[in-house]
């Protein structure tokens, strides 16, 4: 007897756990698809009279700089290239295809297709960044309009969209902090950055690159950033506080204004990592809490697709007092024309080529315009409602817990712990995550270090329905149940993904084994596989 599919399919409004099976094409590595002589595309030919007029141009390249042998790339017809990549795409679970609440801190939300369509128009895709300003008034206007919108959302005064993601924006903020203190003759004295362990790793790593020492605060017993700890950390060496709020635990720091006040009193600046801003749009603002700098991740909060890991934009905002340090150029409007202002002698310079990822700026603008002020607030409130709903569902699963802030509400995400389940069954959070993949969903543990033992971070944004959340909770409940009844099933997962678990970690840690490219693989391991 085969099982009744209604136990898996959503039936009568009740969510179940699907009999998911990811495409498994046994697709070779692309080099193995090569057939000598095949062509994927032909390049435009040079006219004969042009060729005749210039003669032997290859001869102009000195012998030592001439490539001796054509590169060993695969030779494939167009249909084979396309088919290969489409098959690979089927082994990839984009947010469009799944209830993507398991990728906590990443704010996976629906990316409206119309925005992608707009960004593919030639009026942006075929525009060169160095064209005369007269010919790019449209895209400059988009930049200017989105900047105005972010000023209102953040309460800060001036933005740049140049940084290529949240981390590069955090770096830009650290560089601005450095320039600010240097402008006051305090470059050498102000060399410490304070952050918290539940702020993104980049809040520690990026200021380090800018030359700062990093002091990391740990939470108090309730999981809140520790006010006494910050008091102890602040000194005349403090350059800035760089901190996420809400933190990656989904807990809002209610004493944030005190943190800011204390750092300001000591002469430091305060940078607000707003990567987790999705639940607070229209609710509370960086500027009102006294922050001098902030960054929003447009590919998270502002609904642009994540692109398998970029391209992205880290929108960086500062107060009027710090605007002179922003990277060049900034977009200005004289009431008639938009222009790019490079004449900013105190600028930190360039952070990224040209003006950032323009199509992402465009998509974020379109996303905000589809919602307006009421819609943004609705998005925030529903994201938080969804999170607290899922919190309730998850806590009904034996073995799951949500450490810290007991009995309190969370903002847009929760860092859970499976410690009880692990102690009982030996099944870890990582095992659970790989088994969740068998039901067609993502799952993420958390950033390191695992302060919360056996962590799981869920962020159900406004894009998911009640039934979606019920389904995700049902998957977790089923996997937790399996951890007790059939732990091997979980520990050997995934079973229904495109590929199975890698068990030989020498390939990731041992230089004699690791193969970061196909040619390295062939050199080290031959074709024996």
């Amino acid at each position, binding site marked *: 007897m085969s099982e009744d599919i209604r136990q898996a399919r959503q039936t009568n409004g009740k969510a179940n756990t699907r009999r998911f099976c990811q495409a498994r094409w046994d697709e070779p590595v692309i080099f193995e698809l090569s057939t000598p002589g095949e062509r994927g595309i032909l390049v435009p030919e040079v006219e004969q009279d042009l060729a005749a007029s210039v003669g032997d141009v290859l001869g102009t390249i000195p012998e030592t*700089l001439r490539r001796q042998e054509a590169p*060993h790339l695969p030779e494939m017809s167009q249909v084979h290239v396309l088919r290969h990549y489409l098959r690979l795409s089927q082994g990839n679970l984009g947010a469009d295809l799944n209830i993507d609440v398991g990728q906590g801190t990443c704010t996976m939300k629906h990316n409206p297709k119309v925005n992608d369509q707009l960004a593919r128009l030639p009026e942006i895709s075929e525009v060169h960044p160095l064209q005369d300003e007269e010919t790019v008034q449209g895209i400059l206007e988009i930049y200017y309009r989105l900047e105005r919108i972010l000023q209102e*959302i953040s309460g800060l005064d001036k933005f740049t969209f140049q940084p290529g993601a949240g981390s590069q924006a955090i770096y830009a903020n650290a560089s601005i902090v450095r320039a600010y203190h240097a402008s006051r003759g305090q470059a050498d004295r102000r060399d410490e950055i304070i952050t918290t362990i539940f702020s993104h790793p980049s809040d520690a790593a990026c200021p380090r690159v800018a030359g700062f020492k990093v002091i990391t605060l740990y939470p108090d017993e309730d999981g809140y950033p520790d006010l006494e700890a910050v008091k102890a950390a602040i000194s005349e060496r403090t350059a800035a506080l760089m901190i996420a709020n809400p933190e990656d635990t989904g807990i809002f720091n209610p004493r944030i204004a005190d943190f800011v006040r204390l750092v300001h009193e000591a002469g430091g600046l305060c940078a607000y990592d707003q990567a987790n801003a999705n639940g607070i749009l229209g609710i509370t603002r960086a500027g009102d809490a006294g922050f001098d700098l902030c960054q929003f*991740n447009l590919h998270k909060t502002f609904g642009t697709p994540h692109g398998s890991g970029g391209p992205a934009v880290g929108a960086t905002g500062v107060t009027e007092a710090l605007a002179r340090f922003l990277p060049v150029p900034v977009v200005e409007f004289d009431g008639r024309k938009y222009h790019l202002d490079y004449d900013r002698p105190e600028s930190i310079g360039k952070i990224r080529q040209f003006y950032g990822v323009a199509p992402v700026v465009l998509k974020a603008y379109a996303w905000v315009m589809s919602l307006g002020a009421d819609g943004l607030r609705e998005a925030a409130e529903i994201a938080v409602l969804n999170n607290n709903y899922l919190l309730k569902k998850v806590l009904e699963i034996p073995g799951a817990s949500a450490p810290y802030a007991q009995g309190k509400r969370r903002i847009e995400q929760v860092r859970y712990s499976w410690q009880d389940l692990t102690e009982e069954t030996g099944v870890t959070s990582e095992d659970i995550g790989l088994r969740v993949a068998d039901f067609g969903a993502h799952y993420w543990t958390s950033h390191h270090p695992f302060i919360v033992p056996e962590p799981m971070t869920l962020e159900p944004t406004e894009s998911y329905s009640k039934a979606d959340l019920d389904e995700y909770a049902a998957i977790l409940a089923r996997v937790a149940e399996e951890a007790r009844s059939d732990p091997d099933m979980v520990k050997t997962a995934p079973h229904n993904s495109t590929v199975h678990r890698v068990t030989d970690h020498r390939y990731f840690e041992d230089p004699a084994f690791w193969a*970061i490219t196909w040619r390295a693989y062939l050199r080290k391991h031959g074709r024996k596989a």
Partner: protein
Amino acid sequence: MKKPIVYPIIPNSVPSVKADMLREVGAGSPEDFYADIPEELRLKRPMHLPEPLLSEYALRRHVREILARNTTCEDYLNFLGAGCYQHYVPAVCDEVNSRSEFLTAYAGEPYEDHGRFQALFEYTSMMAELLEMDVVSVTMYDGFQAAATALRMAARMTGRQQALIAGTIGRDNLSKICDYCKSDIEIRLVPHDPKTGLMDLGSLRSALSERTAAVCFENPSYLGFLESQAGEIASLAHGQGAECIVSVDPLSLGIVAPPSAYGADIVCGDIQPFGMHMQFGGGHAGFIATRDEQRYVMEYPTRLFGLAPTRVPGEFGFGDVAYERTSFAVREQGKEWVGTAAALWGITAGVYMALMGPQGFVEIGEGILQRSHYAAQRLGAIPGVRAPLLQSPYFKELVVNFDGTRKTVAEINRGLLGRRIFGGKDLSREFPEMGQSALFCVTEVHTKADLDRLAEALQEVLR
């Protein structure tokens, strides 16, 4: 009372559903969830934002109306390059990077996101063949970031704190490098021969010391010429125990030797030419490549995807190589930082390389060389115009000097614009010593007729 809006992108904005869920979690209103946010930090008014365009139609119309104020390189003939290049984008590149599965994915595990891992592994593997190096990073933000990180890698490896960079580097690129290296590395520019653009080896010799972490140059350079002394520069760097870093246009590698062939240790660059539309500068992604030696691998800040066997005999899986070096693993103790960068462009570049194949790269390289030399012939024949200004071999860009015309580049470009042509990038502020010069870029998209039209338009403008 205003009728509540049900937002198509917010399923639970249905009022009854929202009410049910609030009841289920025991909340009176969404306000309950914000109890931790102190009253004085609450925004007690609606945000002042533009009125929304609730229908998709209205939104699309609004954005199109704004974008209509742009002029494109399809409307006008374009000769701008300087880091962002108009190459033809094969249709399959757009097809693959428009797929939801790749476009909307993020950071899944190598199992349910196997496709992303394999596609990026293949991207680095094909880059490795072009570059003839065994380790290639997954994508970084852009070529500027790649160059800046390459310098930091070299400084960490050598324990030294000075970098010597060819003086012909683009000033935006230099600005990025100086900011990024400010706290640890002294950046010094090496003078070049104004006639050829080539690095002055005498100056390099005297600048090199046991303090030098790296010697860095571009090939082809920002100014378009090929650095024909590449091998000697690498030898000089190695003679002082410094790393040789070369930034390369990967599109040149069908005909130009990969930097590894003349002694480069760390190779970097930007893959925008590989299937990314210009997008007003939004199509960039950087790469770094090295030999497969542990001392190099351990200095990469990016993730590195390695191939590995799985539980099933013969099956290939993927995972992170040497993860402990990253900021994801050890925060500020990691190498610089790792985070979201430009993965979709890496996948796209993989598609591009697979479509082009070895023959495509050879043909596009030679075709560009022919066109750029034809452009030089035509422009150089115009009285008062020197093209190329620099007496060195070049690939797709060349400096054109207008000092003999008694017109500024700005004036000339305005004249060209009136004739629906985007002229070359004005270099007069960036490299004032070259006078009124512009950097013209010629690629496979230009026909002979296009180049003739440019020459004729220039003649008119200069008349």
